[in-house]
């Protein structure tokens, strides 16, 4: 009986996979099957071979374009290649990495990238959670509200950078016009011209663009909390505030983790918006690694140095993606 069921499972990996993901027993089943050997093994093997036409071409494309390119980029970062010629793959040097600590632009970019990463991610999560909690209060026209809050996610950064340049314009932009209108002239700064505010201005615009995304992630999380958790807490006499703090927010942990990874990784590569607003040389108040990399490689033809900065960016991204992908893998969520 057991063996038959296992064979069926083999033949029907779709359901196996689901079961694995749900129960986390995949390893056990697998070990079981391995001991049975013979026929099952051969079947599996033929499955593997037969399925290759499906997954191999896309996988090969990904390996070549994504991982091959990453490896190649690392190699280029060791060559010292610059100018319009070809890289010399016979001489390797760590020079590019040695330059970094002395390069003020690089240091400023790194600092801004980290500031952007932290401020943008946390603020977007908070705003998104706030939106989700409001929208989740059984309101009328809920889908209309949701649609409006999420709308910025459908727009290109080129488009939103153009809208926000005009929002921030001094003195005619909407923000400063409004501040003048309500008698707060004193707060009507030159948002994009004044180096103190530039990075903050970019972060606010990006929060505008991404908080809707956080909202729908949190909404999905909120709606997966069983109703009886609310009921139980209510019966215990918890106030609304306590209800949220004690019961709901803790249950949103996985939504938070997922959204955080997406936001942080985005913050690392937030190139388009700053490039469109400020060009390739935005100044140290708002320069980030993604822009510095582009400027070194594609404006100055310092290819190897650009590639080395890209390696740093990649390493930063790995420290975020790595643990996430690993836990997803461990949980069998893949």
């Amino acid at each position, binding site marked *: 009986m057991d063996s038959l069921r296992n064979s069926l499972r083999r033949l029907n990996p779709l359901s196996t996979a689901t079961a694995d993901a749900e129960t986390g027993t995949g390893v056990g089943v697998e070990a079981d099957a391995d001991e049975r050997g013979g026929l099952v*093994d051969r079947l599996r093997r033929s499955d593997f071979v037969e399925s290759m036409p499906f997954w191999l071409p896309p996988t090969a494309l990904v390996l070549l374009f994504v991982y*091959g390119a990453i490896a190649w980029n690392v190699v280029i970062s060791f060559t010292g290649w610059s100018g319009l*010629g*070809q890289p010399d793959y016979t001489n390797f040097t760590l020079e590019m990495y040695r330059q970094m600590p002395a390069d003020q632009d690089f240091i400023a970019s790194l600092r801004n990238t980290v500031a952007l990463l932290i401020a943008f991610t946390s603020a977007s999560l908070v705003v998104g959670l706030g939106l989700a909690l409001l929208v989740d209060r059984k309101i009328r026209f809920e889908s209309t509200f949701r649609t409006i809050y999420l709308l910025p996610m459908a727009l290109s950064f080129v488009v939103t950078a153009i809208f926000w340049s005009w929002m921030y314009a001094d003195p005619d932009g909407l923000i400063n016009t409004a501040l003048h209108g309500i008698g707060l002239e004193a707060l009507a700064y030159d948002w994009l*011209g004044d180096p103190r505010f530039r990075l903050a201005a970019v972060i606010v615009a990006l929060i505008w663009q991404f908080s809707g995304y956080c909202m729908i992630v949190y909404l999905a999380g909120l709606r997966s909390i069983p109703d009886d958790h609310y009921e139980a807490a209510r019966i215990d006499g918890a106030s609304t505030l306590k209800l949220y703090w004690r019961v709901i927010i803790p249950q949103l942990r996985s939504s938070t983790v997922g959204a955080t990874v997406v936001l942080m990784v985005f913050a690392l590569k937030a190139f388009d918006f700053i490039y469109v607003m400020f060009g390739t040389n935005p100044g*140290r108040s708002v320069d980030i690694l993604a822009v510095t990399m582009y400027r070194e490689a594609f*404006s*100055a033809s310092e290819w190897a140095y650009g590639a080395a900065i890209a390696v740093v960016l990649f390493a930063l991204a790995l420290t975020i993606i790595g643990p996430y992908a690993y836990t997803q893998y461990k949980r069998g969520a893949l």
Partner: protein
Amino acid sequence: MIRKNSNKTGRSRRTVLQATGAVGLAAIAGCLSGGDDAEPLENLLEEDPEEYQAVEVGHWWTAGGEEDAFEALVEGFEAEYPDIEIDSSPSPGGAGSALEADIRNRVVDQNPPSTFQVWPGQALTDYTEEDLLYDIDGNVWDDEMREAYHDGPVDVSRPDGEFVAVPINIHRLNNLFYNVDVVEDSGVDPESIDSPSELLEAMEAVNDAGYVGMAQQTASAWSTLQLWAQVLLGEYGVDVYESFIDGNVEENEDEIRDSLTLVVDYSEYFNEDASSMNDWDDASNYINSGEAAFFHQGDWAAGEYEADDDLEYGANWDHVAFPGTEEMYALNMDSFVFPKHNPSPNATLRFLQYAATPEAQERFNQHKGSIPPRTDVSDEAFTPFLQDQMADFQESTDQPPSIAHGLAVAPATQTDIEGAFANFIDNWDVDETYDDLVNSFQ
């Protein structure tokens, strides 16, 4: 059993990796063999070809007078060579941003346009180092032509010793524009200001009279970079300037620090909205409206005043050479080059030869608001302002090349210097900017 099984999958996976590895290797191999040599120019040229390919011209003259200038040039060329078609390939971005990167890509891909607009001088070194441009000595440049040029333009046409560029225009960077009424009202005589530090005193007087001392935009760095370059030239002369662009920053530390400090002092007299201006023409408008006394910019700014019906040259707006640079004509130029792997060698050559003629330069520059690089072009067709400029150019003893426009330093250095000034206009920190300038040349 387990081991056997994993071996099998292992082998399959290895095969996959080998396959992708092979593709990668092929790619790298292709890359290494990519730098094959182009045909020598002589093999491509014919005395009298049966037919010509169209000349694709990459450029960023996309608006206003610039567009008219290019059209006038094309018209003249097509009248001279009715068999050759010009395929205009305009790109956006003004001072070389998108076009630059695009053209570089195409040149490296051995798929260049026939010719393209490019800053001459050190801006070309990336190309010449990789031998991507044809030497056009003999085919375009000859003794007759060389005689018609001052040394400055000749030098930037051969950055590495070989003639690779045909200059088409010159914009002057050391003009100081002013509003006549405002300086008179402030009791300042621009003609008598002899140095950049005296200009500061003049601005003070203007400020006391209730006007903006100097109109400026500081939203992007290049305007302040070119202003500083003129301060350095005016206060310390051509030798220090040329020493700087040769990379001797530390040798000239005092001069560089002092000139930067002077610019910081100037900034006290800039218009208050300098940092939020989108472009230089917003700043130049302060001269039109009579709100500011002085304005430093390349001589393209004169177009803004000539186009203003309320202003008359000499009576309402005027200019002097930037104080201390009276004998100089600071160069910002455009040129055409002859890239290798050329899609239309015979037609390209004729286009370059035409661009070097007095007729072509007259046609082009009167619309562009710049002057011909040749010194033997009649000034009749030009505006009074440009006629004065041409006379100044004739008499100039030095023609220092512009840093902000790529003539003076290699592109990577220029990017770094721009970065230094992007920072400078944010914090006006002389020490930091000086350090950045030192690093720019390393």
